[in-house]
Every structure is written in structure tokens, then in C-alpha cells.
């Protein structure tokens, strides 16, 4: 492969890596909003919280793999507690979206302060596990194994998610609830319990992304901001509640970022918003949007 081709292929894979990471974060966000109508401003904070959990577990056990399992679970548990004891109460107050926004914003702030109090304001490092370090050479292109791992891991999770959504009754319930959750409730299904589960799973997936991203980025209190905005764009453009929309738009944004930087670097940061404006002017519900809110 010529160096120029290698460069383009590398950029394409970079786009996949970032796109899949973005998907892991955005998928939870879109399901939560699509199904529960909750705009979770704290979602990216869970991503960050999981990165800190990962750092801590690695510090205790010296094992990235154990962290990969425990940190997302821990994050998911925090998510479930938040849903069960905070969100549900706020929803009963009947404040509508404002209530959710205020509460999740508050949670984001609490998480932000908590990580600073527990782990300090300095950055922390998580190392790539030895088995995933280094580069692999394919047809003349050298590419880091770890980034390929991120892609692989995300695909596995995407597969699991798709399986649950399209091959299980729970998945059927979730898909139905995205279009009409009251009707699902009227069919005898305990929606509060389903909500809690979806919120927990969505948060867990953001947690997986947090662990995956930790060795690539630095673990510091501003970690949430980096990915939060992009995740929202994915949800809005892909359509609330649409997993397919989340996949497609995440990957597209990843590639847009890579090739934007490659060819029109001065415009690259704005491209995302141009893209969003363009799509929304033709399809205000997003590409695959189904919700009526």
C-alpha cells in the first residue's frame, strides 16, 4: 500500500474507532431519551465516572480486564440508583422536561465534584494492557492494536444490543415503548422496572466507552465535556430512540471528523454542526426518528 493510501486507510480506521466509541455513549443516550423521554445531561458524566472507576480498579488490581468488567457494572449500578431514587421521584412532580433537565444537570455537577474530591484535580493515567500494546502491520499499514480492540469491543456490544432488541421479548417491549410507552404499560408491562433496566444498561454502555477511552485519553475532570456534545448530536441527528440511527450517525461523524481534519482542517470543528443543521432542515425528527416529542 502506498504511503498516501496508508494515510487514508488509517484515517478511515481512526474514524471507525472514534465512531464506535461515540456509538457506545450515544446508544444509551438515545434509548433513554427515546423510551423514557428523559434528556439525560449527565450521560457523559457517567462516561467519565467509569473512566475514574477504571483507573481505581487498575490501581487496586493491576488488571485492565477486571476494570473493563467492574467499572461499567459499577457505573450501571450508579445509573440504576439515580433512576430509581432520583429520576422517578422528579418525574412524579410533573415538571416535564424541565424537571429531568435540572435533575440530570445537577447529577452531572455532583459527579464532577465527586471525582475531584475523591481523585483530585490532577490527571490520571491508565495504561494500555500489555496484551493490547503495540502495532499490527497489514499490507504496509501499521495500526495500533488497541484501537482495533476498541472497534472489536464495540461491535460485540452492538451485536449484543441488537440481539436483545430484536430477538428478545424485552427488546420488543423497548422498541414498542419508544413509540408509545403508555400503551405498553396498559398491556400489563411494569414500565418503571423496564425504565430502570434501560437506564442502567444505557449507563453501563457509556461506562464501557469510558473504560475503552481511558488509555487513549487522560482521566481528568473535564473528560465528560469532550464526548457529551458529540453524543447529543448523534441522538438528535440519528433520531431519538433509534439504535440504527445512532450507529449510522456515530460512524458518519467519526469519518467526518477524520477526513474533515485530513482535507479541510480549518472547518473540521464546524462540520459536525453544519451536518446537523443540514439533516434537521430536511428531517426534523432525525434520520430514523420515531418519537413525537
Amino acid at each position, binding site marked *: 500500500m502506498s504511503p498516501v493510501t496508508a494515510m487514508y486507510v488509517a484515517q478511515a480506521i481512526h474514524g471507525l474507532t472514534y465512531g464506535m466509541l461515540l456509538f457506545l455513549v450515544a446508544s444509551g443516550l438515545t434509548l433513554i431519551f427515546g423510551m423514557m423521554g428523559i434528556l439525560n445531561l449527565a450521560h457523559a458524566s457517567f462516561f467519565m465516572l467509569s473512566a475514574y472507576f477504571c483507573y481505581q480498579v487498575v490501581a487496586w488490581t493491576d488488571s485492565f480486564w477486571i476494570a473493563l468488567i467492574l467499572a461499567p457494572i459499577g457505573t450501571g449500578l450508579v445509573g440504576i440508583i439515580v433512576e430509581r431514587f432520583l429520576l422517578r421521584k422528579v418525574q412524579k412532580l410533573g415538571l416535564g422536561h424541565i424537571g429531568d433537565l435540572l435533575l440530570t444537570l445537577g447529577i452531572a455537577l455532583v459527579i464532577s465534584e465527586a471525582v475531584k474530591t475523591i481523585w483530585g484535580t490532577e490527571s490520571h493515567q491508565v495504561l494500555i494492557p500489555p496484551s493490547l500494546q503495540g502495532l499490527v502491520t497489514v499490507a504496509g499499514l501499521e495500526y495500533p492494536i488497541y484501537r482495533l480492540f476498541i472497534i472489536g469491543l464495540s461491535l460485540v456490544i452492538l451485536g449484543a444490543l441488537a440481539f436483545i432488541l430484536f430477538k428478545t*421479548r424485552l427488546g*420488543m*417491549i423497548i*422498541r*414498542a415503548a*419508544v*413509540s*408509545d410507552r*403508555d*400503551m*405498553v*404499560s*396498559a*398491556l*400489563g*408491562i*411494569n*414500565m*418503571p422496572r423496564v425504565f430502570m433496566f434501560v437506564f442502567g444498561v444505557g449507563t453501563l454502555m457509556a461506562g464501557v466507552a469510558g473504560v475503552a477511552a481511558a488509555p487513549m485519553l487522560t482521566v481528568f475532570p473535564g473528560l465528560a465535556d469532550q464526548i457529551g456534545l458529540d453524543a447529543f448530536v448523534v441522538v438528535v441527528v440519528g433520531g431519538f430512540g433509534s439504535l440504527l440511527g445512532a450507529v449510522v450517525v456515530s460512524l458518519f461523524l467519526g469519518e467526518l471528523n477524520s477526513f474533515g481534519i485530513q482535507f479541510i482542517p480549518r472547518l473540521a470543528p464546524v462540520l459536525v454542526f453544519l451536518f446537523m443543521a443540514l439533516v434537521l432542515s430536511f428531517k426534523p425528527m432525525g434520520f430514523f426518528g*420515531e418519537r413525537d416529542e
Partner: protein
Amino acid sequence: MPTWGMGGCSVFLEINDLNTYYGPSHVLQGISLTVAKGEIVALLGRNGMGKSTTLKTIMGLAKPKSGQVVFQGNSIFGNPPHKVSMAGIGYVPEERRIFPNLSVEDNLLIGVKGGVIDQSNPDAWTLEKMYEVFPSLKKRRTNKGANLSGGEQQMLAIGRALMGNPSLLLVDEPTEGLAPIIVEAVRDILAEINKMGVSILLVEHNLNVAMSLAHRVYLMGKAHIGFVGTVKELDNNPDARAQYLEV
């Protein structure tokens, strides 16, 4: 509270002095009605009188402020919808609200309580039985809900509710927007279901359909009940009809 002309029939569903608000608007002001086991009761009246709200309140989709809702002797007042459903009440809503992104078969399956057909109940609805009673649904079993015609969607909405083996069905405007032939079919299906033992509380603006199905009728004025009686009694009361029904 008085039961109206029931004689010895058991009261299945009883609503007493129900008050519901939508924000500041007092939409139901002291509504009372009953449904006996095996009955079809029709709730009639002009648009906006609170008929749908009454059904929604029973189903737990609207929150009542005060009053009583008793089903089979147990209070279901203020219960969330899934609890009301599990108590044995099925809901066929206005606008059908079938799930557009699910197939016909999945729409039916989602109505199965707990996800598992009750093997111990010989009368339990199964997919086979459903497709016998609703052959049009069988034809379209793999189609997505959004691709069905209005009439097919209505059948699906009814079937979906039935899959939960309800003993009482709340049906809201089932013939709305349907062609006369389909209206007939819907009417017949509801009659057949009732014969199988399902009680029905029906909101219907089509007077002929309502009168041909119901045993008793309630006429709703603004947020209150204005008339109650058998179909025959309503037939013989043109004043009531004039006062509460379409002009």
C-alpha cells in the same frame, strides 16, 4: 351507592364519584357508573364530554383526584396502568395506538401478560385462536403495524388487548374513521367477544353500533352523567337523546 337495575347480577366494575383534572380543568365531575359481569355498557355523548377520560382514568392513564374505582371487589383507584391491566382489564384505545415498528404478530405477542401463554387456562388466547377469530390478521402477520389499513389496525388493537385474557375490555371509539363494511365487522367482533364472556365498557359516537351492542347506556353531559338506562329506555326517550347526543 345504588346499582342501576341490576337485580341479582354481580357488579364487575364500579366507579363512584370520580373526579379527574387535566391541569386546572375539571374534566370529570363526580362520575359514577357500573358494569355488570357479561354486560356491554356504552358511554355516549358529544365530543369533549369526558368519555375517553373516563376510560383513561380507569386504566390509570389519567390520574383521578378523588372517588372510587372498584374492579371485582378490589380498588384499582390510582393504580398505574400495568397494575390495572394485570387485574384483568384490557384497553383498546382511541386511535388504536398499535406499535408501528413491530409486526402484527409481535403486536399481539406483546399483549401476552408475562410473555408466556397461560397453559393451565383452556380459554386463554393463543396466536392460533387469535388468527381463527381474526383471519385478516393472520394474512398480515409479518407486516409492520404501520403498513396496515385502518380497519386492520383496529382488529389488531382489539386482538392485542385480548391476548392478555382480560375479563373487562375498555374500548374507545372503535369505529372512528372506518368504512361501513369494516364498522360492521368491528361491531360483530365485539359482540362475539362478549359472547365468549368478556365484559365491555364501550365509548362510541356511532349511535347505531352502540345501541345494537350495548345492554345499558350512560349519556354523558359536560363532565357528568345525564342519563342511564337500557337501550330500550333510551330508544323511548327522545328528549334525552336530543339533549346529550349529536344534533
